[in-house]
């Protein structure tokens, strides 16, 4: 007799809503590493990233109704949540650093070449091709915003470009990525 298929993420969230800890554990095993990895990439601190991971899954337990399967995959939901929470922490950390720099207590951090960093770490060939198909300006703005956790205003400041230009590059780039990734079944409905 064949093994029973694994329950879907949506079914497990229903079980989580019924206070089923085993279901939460299964979801954690499926997605915990991805959540931690994204948080680590943004925060660059393992301890903070683990705190975010704990928070994300605890919130899934206390507020399972926040996930609506009609709006997308659970992994997308968790990663969006992780990104948002990490960016909040990052911005408060950056604000603290800025204050300390102004007070002369800390040297400014060395600039990161995020675009190269991201491009060399992309393991999915289709995503790499989609990113490579963007203009340099689009790719740079998107990687700084998403993996650097910067607002578009901060991206504009870093790149010395008008805010309107950065907004436009991000929008065009995301639209193009959507088209490319939807066509190969990686994103989209």
């Amino acid at each position, binding site marked *: 007799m064949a093994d029973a298929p694994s329950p879907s993420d949506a079914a497990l969230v229903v079980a989580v809503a019924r206070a089923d800890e085993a279901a939460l554990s299964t979801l954690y095993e499926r997605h915990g590493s991805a959540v931690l990895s994204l948080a680590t990439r943004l925060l660059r601190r*393992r301890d903070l990233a683990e705190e975010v991971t*704990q928070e994300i*899954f605890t919130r899934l337990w206390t507020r399972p109704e926040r996930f609506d*399967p009609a709006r997308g995959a659970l992994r997308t939901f968790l990663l969006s949540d992780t990104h948002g929470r990490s960016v909040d922490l990052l911005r408060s950390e950056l604000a603290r650093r800025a204050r300390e720099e102004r007070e002369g207590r800390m040297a400014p951090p060395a600039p990161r070449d995020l675009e190269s960093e991201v491009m060399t770490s992309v393991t999915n060939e289709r995503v790499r091709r989609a990113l490579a198909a963007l203009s340099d300006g689009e790719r740079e703005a998107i990687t700084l915003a998403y*993996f650097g956790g910067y607002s578009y205003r901060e991206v504009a400041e870093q790149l010395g470009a008008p805010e309107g230009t950065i907004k436009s590059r991000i929008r065009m780039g995301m639209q193009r*990525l*959507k088209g490319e990734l939807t066509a190969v079944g990686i994103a989209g409905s």
Partner: protein
Amino acid sequence: MRTADEMQELIALYSLDALEHAERLEVDAAVAADASLLRELDEMRAVAAALADAVEPATDVPSPAVWRGIQAEIATGRPAQPTGGRRWGIGTFMALAAVVIAVALAVRVGNLQRELDSVELTRLAEAKMTEPSAFVVTLGGGAGQEETVVEAVIGPDGVGYVMAGALPALPADRTYQLWAIVAAEPEPRVVSAGVLGNDPSVAPFQAVGEIVGLAITAEVAGGVPVSEGEPIAAWLADA
């Protein structure tokens, strides 16, 4: 007032968490009022998540302390359970219609339906009906309404199908919504089992726990977490 083009731009930025707080609130309000903008946001978020998923993991698995921390947190913070409501016993679905359906947790499983076309769903439903441990129930309409009869089959794994083809089509801004009444102490709970669309045929649902009733209501498109509408068709198990 933003133009549609400007709002699309903000949505792309929102999906990357690249907006300032005030602009985020603006997008929140816009997507709450416009389903097409919400869909655009969801698609953009899927793109962003695909980027995150495509890069080499920045770290390995979480340390055991993370799961221990989650366990400690959830031990003190269980999901809210429904309160109040009536005790479901032997009764008719009209009794169901008389109460406000209290739903504490509405988890939609409508994505299952999108993944499978109607023919495939019909085949799966028919296969489920042949399973010895599955049971078939009939949801009937109430007095004062034109009789509506809908069959549903529920397997022991909680996977069920509702054959909703007999339901008349609703306007595009409305949807049928399925509710499961699940055995619980001290009282059964009513939970959303998914939106069926405005012109459903065969729809799957997943339930957890012992189902003691099913009901279908007509709601606004997208469904509601709490229904105040009268069931169009319902079934309640004998006590």
